């Protein structure tokens, strides 16, 4: 064996060189070769690529030509990877400058103090530009921490064929959550199938549903907001849904699955009704043309107030940004009425800029009114008038939601007692509220019922 070492010896320099070269290339794996003269702005969006590549590149191009010397680096991040990527990037001091969030993600980063206050950085008046309801939830503790980009309103997609099997039609189907819950029981008893699913546990929409029903889990005491989650009407409300789940009327994924599970259930013909963005209709068409043919589009479900929920996609400037003013200008540019009209035309999202809505596109003019996609769009645009962003403007809200979700998960999966669990969550909510800046009932969306 020793004699073999001679052979190795002769090959040694070559082998070593190759491996050292590999090592160097590892270290330079992501070396940046950017022009030092340029100011670099990094923009992160959520799941827009590849569908909106053309649009984004054009809008970015416009911004770059209006701001010579600025280079915008656009990164599109998948929804479920945003938290990990943003936290690690921030910990590595490599935070992007401008980030597009979902509303829930946004309030968490806002609460962590990760966002830049935009007051005084913007080239125009936000109050004149954006829908008041959308702007309101981005104004936390007196700071404007993001601008509203596009809105996603919801519509109901119903599978008429499946409804028929349960003896229902789009006209007899309930308009609000409570009626639908009753119908789901009958439907399950008749067909053994599921009428609909809703997110009760993970990413629970129950807090939104409560507010939509006029159930406010807060009171104001001595000018401070206090949780009142364990009040009788709320316990009864939650109990009704938990019972419904345990009776097997809702699919298991309503405890653990996110929105994706609902869309999949619908497109596979396992759910008769889902509440979702109108854009999901495209997806159903591509995934299952048979179900698409059986689909009707209806106005969104709501609670007793008759007002549907609108989700805002905020876009904000990170506190770590070296160029906050330019970053704010980029966010402003992306959310301008003109650009939002263009974006909405390419998708089925709605603009947060009222000026966009005069565009004939949102009235369905000159198009086939029977086309489900057109129908869904017009329905969404119309529902914007009465819709409200049912998201409390509280910096503690993300943590409160988390505590709530965990409580729900315990009730659903571990059969924990509803009243006792809500009392625990109520305690956690109060602790969280005490630890954050004082808020009043003004922070809670409490609109009047639709006349």
């Amino acid at each position, binding site marked *: 064996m*020793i*004699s073999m*070492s001679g052979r190795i010896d002769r090959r040694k320099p070559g082998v070593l060189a190759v491996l050292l070269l590999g090592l160097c290339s590892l270290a330079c794996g992501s070396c940046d070769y950017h022009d030092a003269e340029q100011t670099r702005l990094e923009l992160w969006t959520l799941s827009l690529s590849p569908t909106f590549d053309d649009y984004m590149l054009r809008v970015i191009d416009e911004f770059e030509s209006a701001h010579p010397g600025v280079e915008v680096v656009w990164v599109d991040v998948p929804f479920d990877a945003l*938290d*990990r990527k943003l*936290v*690690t990037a*921030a*910990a590595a001091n490599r935070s992007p400058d401008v980030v597009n969030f979902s509303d829930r993600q946004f309030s*968490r*980063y806002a609460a*962590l*103090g*990760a966002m830049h206050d935009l007051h005084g950085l913007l080239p125009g008046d936000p109050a004149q530009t954006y829908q008041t309801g959308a702007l309101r939830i981005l104004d936390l503790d007196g700071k404007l921490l993001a601008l509203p980009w596009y809105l996603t309103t919801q519509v109901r997609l119903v599978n008429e064929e499946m409804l028929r099997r349960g003896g229902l039609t789009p006209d007899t189907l309930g308009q609000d959550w409570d009626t639908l819950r009753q119908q789901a029981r009958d439907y399950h008893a008749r067909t053994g199938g599921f009428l609909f699913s809703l997110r009760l*546990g*993970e990413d629970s929409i129950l807090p939104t549903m409560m507010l939509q029903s006029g159930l406010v889990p807060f009171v104001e005491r001595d000018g401070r907001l206090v949780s009142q989650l364990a009040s009788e009407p709320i316990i009864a409300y939650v109990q009704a849904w938990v019972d419904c789940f345990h009776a097997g009327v809702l699919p*298991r*994924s309503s*405890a*653990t*699955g*996110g929105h994706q*599970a609902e869309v999949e259930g619908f497109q*596979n013909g*396992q759910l008769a009704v889902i509440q979702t963005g109108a854009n999901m209709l495209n997806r159903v068409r591509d995934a299952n043309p048979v179900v698409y043919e059986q689909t009707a589009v209806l106005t969104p479900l709501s609670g007793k107030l008759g007002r549907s929920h609108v989700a805002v996609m905020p876009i904000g400037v990170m*506190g770590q940004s070296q160029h906050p003013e330019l970053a704010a200008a980029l966010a402003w540019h992306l959310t301008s009425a003109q650009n939002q009209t263009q974006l909405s035309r390419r998708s089925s999202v709605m603009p947060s800029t009222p000026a966009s809505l005069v565009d004939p596109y949102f009235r369905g003019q000159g198009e086939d009114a029977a086309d489900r996609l057109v129908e869904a769009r017009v329905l969404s645009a119309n529902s914007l008038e009465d819709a409200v962003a049912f998201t409390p403007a509280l910096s503690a809200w993300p943590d409160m939601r988390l505590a709530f*979700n*965990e409580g729900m*998960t315990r009730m659903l*999966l*571990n059969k924990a007692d509803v009243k006792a669990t809500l009392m625990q969550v109520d305690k956690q909510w109060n602790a969280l509220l005490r630890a954050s800046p004082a808020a009043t009932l003004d922070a809670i969306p409490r609109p009047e019922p639709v006349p």
Partner: protein
Amino acid sequence: MNDTHTPRLQGNRRAKRSTLRPHGTWTPYLFLFPAAAILGTFVLAAMLQVVYFSLTDYNVFRGGSFIGLENYRRLMSDERFWFCLGNSFIYLLVTPVLMALSLGAAMVVHAGLRGLTLLRVLLFMPVVTPTIVAAIAFRLLLDEDAGLINSALNLIGIADLPWLTGHPWTLISAMLVTLWKGFGYYMMIFLAALMAVPRELEEAAAIDGAGRLGVFLNVTLPSLRPILVLVAVISSISALKVFDELFITVKGVPVSQQTVVPLIYDTAFARGEFGLACAIGVVLFIVVLLFSFAQLRIARDQ
């Protein structure tokens, strides 16, 4: 090297050794430097930092300051944490099953039947399969609505089981992946141990009239004891450290329904709470350490 040197050397080994000069004073340290620097920086110093950070409210976005034992106090009253820790202990149930399966496999391979070299190679394949691939394969088989396993269960009259959504089935699903990926490895360790059992002992026992079962229980198993202890400890420590299996197999299940390492990961890298994550890490470290000491104790007692 030249072989002709060897005889001359053997003749006067002692004398030659004493006349050799020692290596330079710095030589051993230079050899050790790269490894020591890396292990020192990335393990030993890191462990000290973990302990320090666990005493701060260090958050990625806000920075942090010293808060004493506050994180630990918070954990003590955090149901999420206790539930995850409990799940980690439930996950330890994988160890006895893993040991029984791998010992059984080792005995089948050790039986030396025709064509069983191939078997040994096949049984080791899951070990080299990346965990993410194993987890995806099981996710596919365990799919609640369309998976093979639930379909098979339906055939024998069992309703769909919530493998990927319902606690504790989610843990069992991940344990299946651990089991599948691990048994080939421990089988090889047992095989080595079985090959080392003196055949004369077994034969002597057989001549003395012990049945096959008697030989196994009275001769084979006792001589495997040190290895059984070793495998028990190694596999329980890796069960406590499980991450990949859960992360992929039951993707989408809330972290609060999983075990301790996913909780560390989520706390640190999805919520940015570095201080709290380190406190959970310290607790995990202590648990792992207790297992290691238990091993040393048992090994010494033998």
